[in-house]
C-alpha cells in the first residue's frame, strides 16, 4: 500500500446534509412520543375526569395541531 497523501492546506470538508423534513411532516396519526402518567384509580373514582369542571368558555374544543411522532422518530 502506498502512503496516503495528506499534504493539502485546506480541508476537504462537507457538512452533514440530511435534507430533513419539517417536524410536522413526520407526523403519523396515532403515534406517541412519550406516555404521560395517569392518575391512580382512587383519585379518578373520587374526582371524576377532572376536566368537566372546566368552565365552558375555557374548554379547549379541538386538540392542538401538534405532530404525532414515535420516540425513535423524534
Amino acid at each position, binding site marked *: 500500500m502506498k502512503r496516503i497523501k495528506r499534504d493539502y492546506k485546506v480541508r476537504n470538508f462537507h457538512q452533514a446534509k440530511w435534507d430533513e423534513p419539517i417536524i410536522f411532516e413526520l407526523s403519523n396519526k396515532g403515534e406517541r412520543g412519550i406516555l*404521560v402518567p395517569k392518575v391512580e384509580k382512587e383519585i379518578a373514582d373520587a374526582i371524576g375526569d377532572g376536566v368537566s369542571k372546566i368552565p365552558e368558555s375555557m374548554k379547549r374544543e379541538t386538540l392542538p395541531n401538534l405532530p404525532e411522532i414515535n420516540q425513535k422518530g*423524534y
Partner: protein
Amino acid sequence: MTIGGFKNHPYIPNSVEEVQKEMLKELGLDSLEDLHAEIPEELKLKSKLNLPEPFKSEYELRRNLEQTLEKNKTCKDYINFLGAGCWQHYVPAICDEINGRSEFLTAYAGEAYNDHGRFQALFEYESLVAELIDMDVVNVPTYDWAQAAATSIRMAARITNRKEALVVGTIDREKLLIIKNYCDPAVNIRLINYDKETGKMDLEDLKAKLSENTAAVYFENPSFLGFIEDQGQEISDMAHNAGAISIVGVDPSSLGVLAPPSHYGADIICGDLQPLGIHMNYGGGQSGFISTRDEEKFVMEFPSRLFGVAPTVKEGEYGFGDIAYDRTSFGNLREKGKEFVGTHTSLWAITAGVYLSLMGPKGMYELGQNIMQKSQYAIQELGKIKGVKGSRFNSINFKEFVVDFNDTGKTVEEINKELLKRGIFGGKDLSKDFPELGQCGLYCVTEIHLKEDIDKLVNSLREIIEG
C-alpha cells in the same frame, strides 16, 4: 515586573512555552509582557489577582464542586409543592439528550448555512408553540415570562401610542417588579382589583380604569394564584372597545385542556417555556415567549428575532433566515430599533420544541387532565383538615391553588418549617405579597405527584395542625 501565567493548561493549547516563543518571534516580540502594549502602565495591575488557588486536576475540581452541591436538598430528596412561576414537571430523557448535544450547546450566532439545524429547530419550536396557542407568529424567546409580559406591554404601547397598561391584580409581585422596572418611564402600570370570592378580575374596576390612555390590559390564565379566569372574552372585548390591546399570559402546560387565549380575544400572548421539558435549575430554566397574529403592525414591533422558512436556489431544499431583521437593534437601527436583542434563552426554545413534538396533542391533553384531577383531589383532601380551606377562591383551578390556613391558628411560615422537617417543601407563603389573604400558601400539584405524595402532605399537615 512579571506576573507569570499557568503553563501547559489543558484549556489553553498555546500556553506551551515553545509554541509561545515561536509565535512571539513571528510577531517580533520578546515575551508575553510585550503584548497589551496599548494598555497604559498606570492601569495595569502590578501583582497577580488575589483569587483562591485553583484545583490542580479535573478530579479535584469535580470532587469539591459535587461536595458543595450535595449540601443542597433537591426536589427529588423532598416532596415539592412549590410552583409560583417555576414548576416541577417530568422532563423526558430526550429533552436532556438533545439540549446536551454539543452542536446545539456550543453554537451561538452562526449563519443560516453552517447553523442550518439551529435555524430549523428554532423555526420548528416557533411553529409548535404557534399550534399550541393557535396563533401565527412566535418569537425566539426572551429571558422569562416577566420579560415577555413587559415587552408585550411595550409593543402594545408603541402600537397604540398610549402610555398606560392595566394589569391583573393577582399578578406575581416579583413579575410586577420586573414589568414596572422595564416599563419605567415609558408606560405607567396600574393594577386592576380582583374579586375576593372568586379571585377573578373585577370588571367594574376594569371599566372604571379603562380610558383613552390605556394601551393594554394584561391578565393571565391560569392566574398566578392558580384559578382559571373565565371572563377572558369580556375582558378582551372591553379592552378592544377602549382601543386597547388584550395581552394574556399563559402557562403552556394547561393548553391541552384549556382554551388558548387566541380563542377569547387575545392580541398578544406570552408565557414561560419552562414547564415544557426544562429543569427548574433554581430558576435558571425560565424562558419567555411572545406571540401575535401575522399582521405587519404586530410583527414589526417584536424586538426579538423571528426565524422564517424560505426556498433556496436548489429545488426541494428548506432554507431559513431572519424575518424583518432591520426592526431589531441588531439591524441598521441600534437605539432606534425595537427595544434590544441579545443573548436570551434559545436552548430552552429548542428543548420546548422537542417536548411538544414528543407529547403531541394527546400527551398535552393527558397532562392537562392529570393535573386537573390531581389538583382537585389535593384541594378536596386538604379541605378535610380542621381549619384548612383547600382552596381560598371558589373558582376552578389548574395546577396551583391557594390553601387557606387562617383558621388554624398557625402561620404559613410555622407550617412550612414543620413540613420541611418531614421532607416536604410546602407551598409559597403569600402573607407578605398578598397581605389581604392573611395566612395562605400557594400550592402546586403536577403529574409528578403521586397519590401517596399528596396523602403524605395531607397527613403531615393534619399532624402539624391538629396535633
